[in-house]
């Protein structure tokens, strides 16, 4: 939107800008805190938590990596993220396309069944989910974690895809049909590539969501060798509390790095406005 006010200096604008900068600082400063501590020894931290570190020490990173086996946790989490993406994005894209381009009374019913899923709290079904994964022999496995995770993400992304496909000109699909492409050809060769921005956003946010998941992992994963990153970090927090902040900061920085890097690369897709398609009815 262009500026509402003219080029003249406007006190209101200055005030609002200052407030916005203040809020942004409030968001970002706590995230930077761990960097104050991470290069210090425990002793140095307890005497001078606020000073700049005397030297850049990487010990805490190395110790954190070893003591909580972050490497293993990271690998598990990557598998969970990829699984969640593979099981969330394609079903959502396909369903969203149907709801956008093949509307009928029957598909509308299915649309509302999927839409309603967005409002179902996963907490409600944790017990049956766990019992089911036991009977499917998927308890304490990574697929046992990412399959339900994906199922609970499909609703949201179906809505995003639906509204995205609706915003694409219908003539394109029609032209492709005239050229003799079948329904699948039209979807896979013409429409799906055009939905690129929605797909990038979905892959990005599903990855970040799966990476950050805590509750479902806590329920579904029991054995240390299958622990995800977040379980490791939380385990570490429980074991040491706030007493070993330097090392804990190292673990936190390692575990947050991939999402932050990904967000830094992809944030313009998040801000592009595709999210406006959520729940547009």
């Amino acid at each position, binding site marked *: 939107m262009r500026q509402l006010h003219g080029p003249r200096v406007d006190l209101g604008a200055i005030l*609002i800008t200052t407030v916005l900068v203040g809020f942004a600082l409030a968001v970002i400063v706590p995230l930077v805190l761990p960097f104050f501590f991470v290069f210090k020894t425990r002793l140095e931290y307890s005497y001078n938590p606020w000073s700049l570190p005397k030297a850049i020490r990487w010990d805490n990173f190395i110790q954190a990596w070893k003591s909580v086996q972050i490497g293993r946790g990271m690998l598990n989490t990557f598998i969970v993220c990829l699984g969640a993406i593979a099981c969330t994005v394609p079903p959502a894209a396909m369903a969203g396309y149907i709801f956008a381009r093949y509307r009928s009374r029957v598909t509308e019913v299915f649309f509302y069944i999927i839409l309603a899923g967005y409002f*179902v709290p996963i907490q409600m079904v944790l017990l*049956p989910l*766990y019992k089911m994964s036991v009977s499917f022999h998927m308890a304490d496995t990574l697929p046992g974690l990412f399959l339900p995770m994906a*199922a609970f993400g499909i609703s949201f992304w179906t809505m995003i895809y639906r509204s995205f496909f609706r915003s694409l000109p219908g003539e394109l699909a029609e032209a492709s049909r005239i050229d003799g492409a079948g329904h699948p050809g039209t979807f896979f060769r013409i429409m799906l590539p055009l939905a690129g921005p929605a797909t990038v956003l979905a892959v990005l946010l599903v990855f970040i969501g799966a990476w*950050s998941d*805590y509750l479902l992992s806590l329920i579904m994963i029991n054995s240390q060798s299958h622990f995800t990153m977040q379980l490791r970090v939380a385990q570490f927090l429980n074991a040491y509390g706030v007493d070993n902040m330097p090392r804990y900061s190292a673990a936190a920085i390692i*575990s947050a790095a991939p999402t932050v890097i990904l967000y830094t690369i992809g944030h313009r897709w998040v801000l592009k406005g595709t999210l406006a398609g959520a729940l547009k*009815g």
Partner: protein
Amino acid sequence: MADLVRAGVVLQRVRRRQNGDVGRVVFIALMLLPAIAALGVYMYYPIEQTFHLSFMRSAGLGEAAFNGLENYKFLFSNDEFRAGLLHVFLWAFWSVLIQLPLSFFVAFSLIAYRNKVTQPLRAIYFLANIMPSAITAMIGLFIFSNTNGVLAAFARKINWTWLGKVDFIGDPSLAFWAIFIVATWTYTGFPIVYLMARMEQIPMEIREAAELEGARGWRYAWHIILPMVAYPMRILAVLMTIGSLKLFDLPYLMTRGGPGDATKTLGIILYNQGFVNWQYGSAAAVGVVIFLCSLVFTIAQFSWQGKGDLE
């Protein structure tokens, strides 16, 4: 002209073919199948199971016996559960009262006062939102902890002993608010980005017309923009309410629901009942309460008024 007619004929033929087309039906069915199957297996069937379990006396994975409403009676006579219910509603109330207007304010300001300074801020507001809760909880403890916390250290530095003495995590009347502040910090990113996206879809003519009428600044926000995003705001209110019913990560990681029951939420109670005490029946009953509350809120919000103006 002749080309146009021919194109029209072809188009009609295509459309006619679409109607009695078996391939079309098969295509629709196959395209919907993965999503429907996933939701059926992992959402709708487990919902049915939760209801079923909540009427059972059941511990562990063994056989269960029908128990009528005993689990519910147990819950509603249980202090912990009542505390959890209260916290959840308080949380929802304050979220809608504080986080929603805050999101509107930030989203509107970012759009209406776009300049060189505010433009790059957009990306920052979403940043805390993508942080794993294991980390945001840690940072929360970090700030509020009485022994090693940032606030306490800061208070000592400037000799505000009263502030240094305040135990935000250990004091039952403050722990809730400490967690709420952390939640506001980390959860407000999505509402801001969502509202911003919806505001940017408001047609230019409306904004320009408003400007010609002389509507500016906060009058403009109140009279023009707010009504246009009333529907997304209601959706966010629903989501915040459901979010409070689901609340688990932050209070669990920061306080384990303590001190006492001061920060117990329905999510924590469900987890403790189901996965610590192995009381499946009463845990399922908590799940049913969560579900019914979110159902009631969702339906109430959506039936309150029509669909919204942007659709």
